[in-house]
């Protein structure tokens, strides 16, 4: 199962490092990262492979959210299917 992580918020040092460290600890592989800054706002999308995950999807959603809260950005993890369904026939 693939998941999509989005991070939106004010740019600061170490956002990617924090997210990636967490994912590595959980044995979650990153398949793709794209990132940009618009008007000082950090905007990142990450596609991850959850098939060898060591924790439940739900828990990962919560943990990423709280990491985001710690550094003042909004971090979401969603299953890729919702985007596929909406944008691909």
């Amino acid at each position, binding site marked *: 199962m693939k998941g999509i992580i989005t991070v939106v918020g004010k740019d600061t040092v170490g956002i990617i490092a924090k997210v990636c460290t967490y994912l590595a600890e959980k044995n979650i592989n990153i398949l*793709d990262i794209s990132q940009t800054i618009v008007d000082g706002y950090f905007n990142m999308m990450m596609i991850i492979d959850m098939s060898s995950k060591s924790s439940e999807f739900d828990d990962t959603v919560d943990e990423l959210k709280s990491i985001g809260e710690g550094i003042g950005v909004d971090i979401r993890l969603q299953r890729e299917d919702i985007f596929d369904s909406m944008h691909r026939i």
Partner: protein
Amino acid sequence: MISRREVQETNKMISEANLDVRTITMGINLLDCVDSDIEKLCKNVYDKITLSAKDLVKTGDDIGKEFGVPIVNKRISVTPISLVGSACKSKENYIRLAKTLDRAAENIGVNFIGGYSALVHKGMTEADSLLIDSIPQALAETRFVCSSVNVGNTRSGIDMSAVKRMGEIIREMAELTKDEDSMACAKFVVFCNAVEDNPFMAGAFHGIGERERVINVGVSGPGVVKRALESVRGADFEELCETVKKTAFKITRVGQLVAREASKRLNVPFGIIDLSLAPTPAVGDSIAEIFTEMGLECAGAPGTTAALAILNDNVKKGGVMASSSVGGLSGAFIPVSEDHGMIEAAASGALTLEKLEAMTCVCSVGLDMIAIPGDTSAATISGIIADEMAIGMINAKTTAVRIIPAIGKSVGEKVDFGGLLGSAPIMRVNSKSCEAFINRGGRIPAPIHSFKN
């Protein structure tokens, strides 16, 4: 591969335009619970519902979390209770059944259970009559139970004796719950051409043509349509329609995904997606705002019926391709109390009951969540219902009336239900009498299906 723009578009729909899955509704057949012993019947009903739907709420919440889209309501619809309780032969027994449904709903944590219903479009059985007599008390003494009565359809006409009775019981339930702004009336709907797979309340029931259990999903997103229309301001109608269609397609795809997933996890077959634009009282989640975006000063202005027709038709066109099975009431709902733009239009006098009636010819359902003065007579309420049923019967569409006589209140005041049901200004009702017309009783025979003029 999914692009960042696409991810952003979806997430903006959710976080800024109130895209949500409005309800996952599990339909449950209760015919196998039938017993002439009320104790056994109530036990069978309670056990079947709580066993069938024990994981419904958790599953809905889990799916919502994984996809990152809110799944607002989890609900149950059951076989029309007039049939399930027909061997019990008393009004008191029906009320016990209503309380059993209420307990079952509370136990599994759903916010409504629909199906305290009777289908009387060609006349009433004794059981139907008992159930209808019990509706006011049943709704006044339960919290989660929703009730509906189908009084007409295009194939068999309208049972006008039932229409007369509906006016009476609506007044009764309003009186019984007058301390809560006649709340019971918000849980009761009268239908013409009721559908068997509607997941939305108050009119949901599990039709007798349905399977043992089924998952029906209602998707919503008036705010998403409004946002999309902001990008085509001033464009012509072709472009307007295309935009609504494309947006409806995207919204419905989310519903289809959620429905499939819920069906798989609960091991209950998928039934239909109901792609209804259902507003909520929140700003940015309103059908009236869509009218404004289309170019009307407010809901009720000349052009409103045309705007609603465009919206309703293109929501269906876009949604049908997005799902393997579309059903329910699909289209645009226009409940007054649940839509802040409609509330404002009604309060300012721009939107009248007569204009709403015209709009129901082209919307997905009918006169919905409309508060009227508390001194409106039962006959006048029946007259309003008869008009709405006639629109449904002749035009072969579902129409409904969910109307609230606000006891002790008059035009200029408002009723407040809180939550999703919102608040409604009390609307003026034509004061001329229809009593002699309603008192005739009997049936309006089925309409002719040719010579469509």
